[in-house]
């Protein structure tokens, strides 16, 4: 690992000012950053430790919740309000990593964890996300865990977070603090970027900008499911995941929010598919049609072709479970 300067921030303002300097990164739980620094995929000259900042705590925010950026994944999953009102968030968190990692991993860090694309981690292979213009080794290489939606010819990586998928289905917002002291709120829907021709840009954070909190709107109720399909039953990243919050009233789907993991460069959501399901009587035929609309633009790259039918079937199964419709 390359040497670097370590600085412990005493306040959020001091943290963002320090982080505005070139080659500087925040460190929170470190569970993603350290691995990437050991591989020298990331080699910051300076680390700003934000773990002592007063950004913990989960508080009521109107009818919703305000989750401090430093709240550990374990505490967030175990919070009684989260378990009662946003159960899909709790389930998504518990489906990710393992206890010891969740004890350290933070809410902000989880949102910013980097892709698990093998080539991104291997400095001996070309990767546009590491060095723009070098090319993408995955498109014609090993791409079993890669994206099928929203890809570009420059990058087909996925975002690996389970928590982010749940937050996307729950319409979360982020609170950001910039080095000039101003705060802004951004919907998670507008936070992540598709790879396009700038795969090294993964989100709209400005240099030095700090995530201070995640805000959840009022609970939507209904049935909430987080279904993660992976190569083994525990301790693996999602091949495909579906987060669903569905409410059926008088035999019709009254509310539906769906977000998908393991399939794109960001947690994926498709308003047209939700619109199609809205106000319809749930049935296997309806779910099959929703699944085929969801994947109409999907494209596989060989080893990940299986994700298209897998996504379709997982969505249909989740909708059937959420609406208690059996085939």
């Amino acid at each position, binding site marked *: *690992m*390359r*040497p*670097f*300067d*370590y600085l*412990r921030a005493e306040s959020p303002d001091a943290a963002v000012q320090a982080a505005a300097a070139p080659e500087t990164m925040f*460190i929170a739980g*470190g*569970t993603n950053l*350290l*691995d990437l*620094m*050991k591989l020298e995929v990331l080699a910051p000259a300076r*680390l700003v*430790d934000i*773990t002592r900042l007063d950004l913990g705590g989960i508080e009521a925010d109107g009818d919703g919740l305000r989750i401090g950026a430093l709240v550990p994944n374990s505490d967030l999953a175990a919070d009684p309000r989260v378990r009662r009102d946003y159960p899909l968030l709790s389930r998504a968190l518990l489906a990710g*990593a*393992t*206890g*010891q*990692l969740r*004890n*350290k991993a933070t809410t902000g860090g989880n949102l910013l964890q980097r892709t698990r694309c093998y080539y991104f981690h291997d400095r001996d292979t070309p990767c546009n996300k590491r060095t723009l213009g070098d090319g993408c080794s995955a498109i014609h290489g090993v791409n079993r865990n890669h994206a099928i939606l929203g890809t570009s010819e420059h990058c087909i990586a996925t975002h690996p977070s389970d928590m982010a998928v749940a937050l996307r289905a729950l319409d979360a917002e982020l609170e950001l603090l910039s080095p000039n002291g101003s705060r802004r709120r951004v919907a998670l829907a507008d936070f992540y970027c598709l790879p396009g021709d700038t795969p090294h840009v993964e989100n709209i954070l400005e240099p030095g900008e700090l995530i201070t909190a995640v805000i959840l709107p009022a609970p939507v109720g209904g049935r909430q499911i987080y279904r993660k399909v992976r190569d083994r039953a*525990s*301790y693996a990243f999602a091949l495909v995941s579906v987060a669903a919050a569905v409410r059926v009233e008088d035999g019709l789907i009254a509310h539906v929010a769906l977000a998908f993991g393991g399939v794109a460069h960001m947690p994926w959501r498709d308003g047209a598919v939700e619109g199609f399901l809205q106000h319809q009587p749930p049935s296997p035929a309806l779910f099959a049609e929703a699944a085929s609309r969801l994947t109409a633009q999907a494209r596989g790259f060989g080893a990940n072709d299986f994700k298209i039918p897998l996504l379709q079937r997982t969505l249909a199964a989740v909708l059937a479970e959420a609406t208690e419709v059996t085939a």
Partner: protein
Amino acid sequence: MSKVTLTVNGRTVTREIEGRTLLVQLLREGLGLTGTHVGCDTSQCGACLVHVNGQAVKSCSIFAAELEGAEVRTIEGMANRDGSLSVIQQAFQDCHGLQCGFCTPGMVMSAAALLQDNPRPTEAEVRHHLEGNLCRCTGYHNIVKAIMAASGQDVAMAAE
């Protein structure tokens, strides 16, 4: 170089470290506490598991510099005051919960964290809890048995 002061197994220590010094390096090389092992060095296997401020974490993915003022407990701090094995350690010995022993310090520390929160776990809870601790010798059945025994529960395990 900078200095870090922390408590390790009840003893306050101060050491010169680099920014990039990992907690596990401080423990093994700085303090000679070689009971904490490094298996993968990539936060997967759990061989390096220690307790920081009472919580189970992987010491290969923490910078020592972050631990100013923290309380760390390692496998060397697990035995009873008189040097006899703790209940959990004794149970690992009695149930043959180790083969080569490489994963054992992490397993014991992980078990201690589980029993602290959940003194009478079910077998399924023990298995689920151990998902972040890999045993290359795959001696999982006896490890689970040991943890059940340490919690004072009889083990009638179907799969053997």
